[in-house]
C-alpha cells in the first residue's frame, strides 16, 4: 500500500476553488447555452472572489508546507494569488462586450481560471516538479487564450508562436532541473541548496544545470536575449489577454526565478549573478531602444515590457531585503499599469472596428479629443511606465534603483535611468499623437456597447496606480511582508 502525501486542503483552497469553478462552469454552460455569457461572468467572478477570500484570510499566517513539502503557502504566495485573481477579474470585465465572449464565454472564463490556478501553484512551488506542473498548467491555458480570437489570423499566429517558444523555454528549464537532480539527488529547492552547500565533485553538471535553468527562466520572464516571443505574442493576442500576460505572467515568472536562485542556488551565486547582471543591462537598453522605432502601440508597450523585465532583474541581483521588496512592489504596480494601458487600447480598438482595429500611432491621432477620459488615463499609465511621480511606477523604479546604489550596483541604477529617458521618448510620441490638433474631431464618440466594463477597469487601475504613487506606504509594507519569505543570501 503506497501512502499518498498529506494534503492541507485549507492551504490549497484558492487553487481548488478556481479549478472547481472552471470545470463547474463548463458543465453548467453545456446545459444552459442560452445563458452562457451571464453564467460565465457570475461563476468566473464568483470563483475568483472565493479564491481571493481564502488568500486574504490566510494573509499574515505562518507559512504552511504541504503536498510532500513541494508546495509552500506563505505571504508571497498569497500576494501573487490575490494580484493574479484581481487581474483575471479585470480581464472578465473587459471581455463583457466582446462578440467572441458571447459565443464562447464559458471556455474563455474556464481557461482564465485554470491560468490563475497554475500561477498560484508556480508561486508556491518549492520543488522543480510542482514548478513544472504549475508552469505548464498556466502556459498551456494561456496559449489557447492567445489564440482565442479565432477570426483573426494574427491571434492564431500569436498562439502558435507562443506555444512553440514557450515550450522550448519549459523544456530547457526541466532539462536543467534534470542535471541539478543528477548532481544533487533532489528536485526540492531545499535539497538542492543543501547538497550544493556541501560541495561535490559534479561541478560541470551543476554549471550546465544552472545555466539551463536560468535560460529557461529568462525565456519565461521575457528578458533579452530570450525575448523574441514577447512582441509577436503581445501584438497578436486579444488585447485583454495581453494586459493579463504583461502583468500577471511577468509577476509569477519573476517570483519563480527569485525562489529558484535564492532558495535552490544560493551556493552558486557566482554563476547566476553575472548572467543576470548582463541580462538586465542588455534587456533595459535593448528593450527600450527597440520600442523607440515601433509604430504599433501594442507592440511598443510589448517592447517596453521587455525593458521592464530588466528593472525587475535588478531587484533579484541586489538580493537584499529592500531589493526584493522593490521587486515585488514594482511588479505588482506594473501589473495594474499594464492592465490599464491595454484596457485603454481595447477601448480604442472598439472605436476603430472598420479600420481593422490596429492601434497604430497614426490611427490614434486626435483620438484623445473623442474619448477624453480614456486618453487622460492613458497619459497617467504611460507616465507610470516611464517612472514619473506621482505614480506607483515612480516608487517602484525609485526603490529598485535606490537599493541598487546602496548595495554597490550604482552602474545598474545609471543604466536604468538611461533606459527611462529613452522610454520617455516613445511614451511622449503616443501622448502627442493622441492630442494631435490637426485631426481633432469636435464630436465625442457615442458610447459603444460593453464599454462600461472597460471604464470600470480603467478606473480601478488608475486608482491603484495613483494611490501607489501618492501613499505608497501600505503597498510597500505588504510587498515587504511578502518578500520577507524569500531566503536572503547576503
Amino acid at each position, binding site marked *: 500500500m503506497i501512502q499518498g502525501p498529506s494534503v492541507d486542503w485549507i492551504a490549497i483552497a484558492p487553487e481548488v476553488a478556481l479549478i472547481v469553478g472552471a470545470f463547474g462552469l463548463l458543465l453548467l454552460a453545456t446545459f444552459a447555452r442560452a445563458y452562457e455569457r451571464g453564467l460565465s461572468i457570475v461563476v468566473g467572478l464568483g470563483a475568483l472572489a472565493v479564491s481571493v477570500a481564502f488568500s486574504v484570510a490566510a494573509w499574515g499566517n505562518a507559512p504552511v508546507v504541504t503536498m510532500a513539502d513541494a508546495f509552500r503557502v506563505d505571504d508571497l504566495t498569497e500576494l501573487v494569488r490575490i494580484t493574479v485573481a484581481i487581474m483575471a477579474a479585470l480581464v472578465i470585465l473587459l471581455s463583457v462586450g466582446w462578440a467572441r465572449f458571447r459565443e464562447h464565454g464559458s471556455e474563455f472564463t474556464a481557461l482564465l481560471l485554470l491560468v490563475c490556478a497554475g500561477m498560484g501553484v508556480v508561486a508556491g512551488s518549492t520543488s*522543480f*516538479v510542482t514548478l*513544472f*506542473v504549475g508552469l*505548464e498548467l498556466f502556459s*498551456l491555458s494561456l*496559449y*489557447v487564450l492567445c*489564440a482565442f480570437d*479565432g477570426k483573426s*489570423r*494574427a491571434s*492564431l*499566429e*500569436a*498562439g*502558435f*508562436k507562443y*506555444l*512553440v517558444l514557450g*515550450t*522550448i523555454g519549459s*523544456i530547457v528549464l*526541466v*532539462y536543467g532541473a*534534470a*542535471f541539478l*537532480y*543528477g548532481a544533487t*539527488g*533532489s*528536485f526540492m529547492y531545499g535539497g538542492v541548496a543543501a547538497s550544493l552547500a556541501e560541495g561535490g565533485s559534479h561541478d560541470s553538471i551543476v554549471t550546465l544545470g544552472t545555466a539551463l535553468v536560468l535560460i529557461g527562466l529568462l525565456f519565461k520572464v521575457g528578458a533579452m536575449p530570450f525575448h523574441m516571443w514577447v*512582441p*509577436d505574442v503581445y*501584438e*497578436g493576442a486579444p488585447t485583454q489577454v495581453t494586459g493579463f500576460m504583461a502583468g500577471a505572467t511577468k509577476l509569477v515568472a519573476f517570483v519563480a526565478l527569485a525562489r529558484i536562485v535564492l532558495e535552490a542556488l544560493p551556493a552558486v551565486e557566482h554563476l547566476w549573478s553575472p548572467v543576470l547582471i548582463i541580462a538586465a543591462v542588455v534587456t533595459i537598453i535593448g528593450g527600450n531602444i527597440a520600442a523607440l522605432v*515601433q509604430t504599433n502601440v501594442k*507592440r511598443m508597450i510589448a517592447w517596453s515590457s521587455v525593458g521592464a523585465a530588466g528593472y525587475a532583474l535588478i531587484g533579484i541581483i541586489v538580493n537584499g531585503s529592500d531589493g526584493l521588496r522593490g521587486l515585488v512592489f514594482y511588479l505588482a504596480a506594473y501589473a495594474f499599469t499594464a492592465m490599464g494601458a491595454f484596457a485603454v487600447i481595447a477601448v480604442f480598438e472598439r472605436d476603430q472596428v472598420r479600420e481593422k482595429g490596429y492601434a497604430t500611432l497614426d490611427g490614434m491621432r486626435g483620438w484623445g479629443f473623442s474619448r477624453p477620459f480614456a486618453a487622460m488615463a492613458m497619459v497617467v499609465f504611460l507616465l507610470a511606465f516611464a517612472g514619473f511621480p506621482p505614480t506607483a511606477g515612480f516608487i517602484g523604479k525609485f526603490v529598485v534603483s535606490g537599493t541598487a546604489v546602496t548595495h554597490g550596483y550604482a552602474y545598474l541604477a545609471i543604466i536604468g535611468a538611461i533606459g527611462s529617458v529613452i522610454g520617455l521618448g516613445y511614451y511622449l510620441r503616443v501622448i502627442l499623437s493622441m492630442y494631435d490638433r490637426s485631426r481633432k474631431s469636435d464630436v465625442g464618440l457615442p458610447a459603444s456597447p460593453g464599454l462600461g466594463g472597460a471604464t470600470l477597469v480603467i478606473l480601478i487601475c488608475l486608482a491603484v496606480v495613483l494611490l501607489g504613487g501618492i501613499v505608497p506606504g501600505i503597498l510597500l509594507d505588504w510587498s515587504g511582508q511578502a518578500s520577507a519569505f524569500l531566503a536572503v543570501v547576503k
Partner: protein
Amino acid sequence: MGVSLNFFLGLSAILFSVGLVGVLLRRSPLTILLSLEIMLNSVNLTLVAFSREVGGSDGQVFALIVMGIAAAEVVVGLGLVVAMTRREMVLDTDELRTLNG
C-alpha cells in the same frame, strides 16, 4: 551496470540538439511539434538515467509527469494547427509573417 551514465547523457544531448535544430529549421508546424516531442523525450531520458545513478524513483516519477504534460502540449498544438488550417492559413512557418518586426 552495463551501459555507463555518460552514454545516456550523450544520447540525450544529441536528441535535444536534433529537436532544437528541427524546431528552428523546419517549416511545417507539424514537424515543429514533432521536434518539440523529441526534445521532451531527451529530457525524459536524462531524468531516467540520473534516476538510476542517484537511486530512488524521483526521476522516473518526474519523467512520467513530463510525458503526461507532453501529451497535453501536443493536444493544444494540434488544436491550433487545425484552427489554422480552417482559416486557410498556409502550413508553412515562413508564411506566418502577419506579426513581424
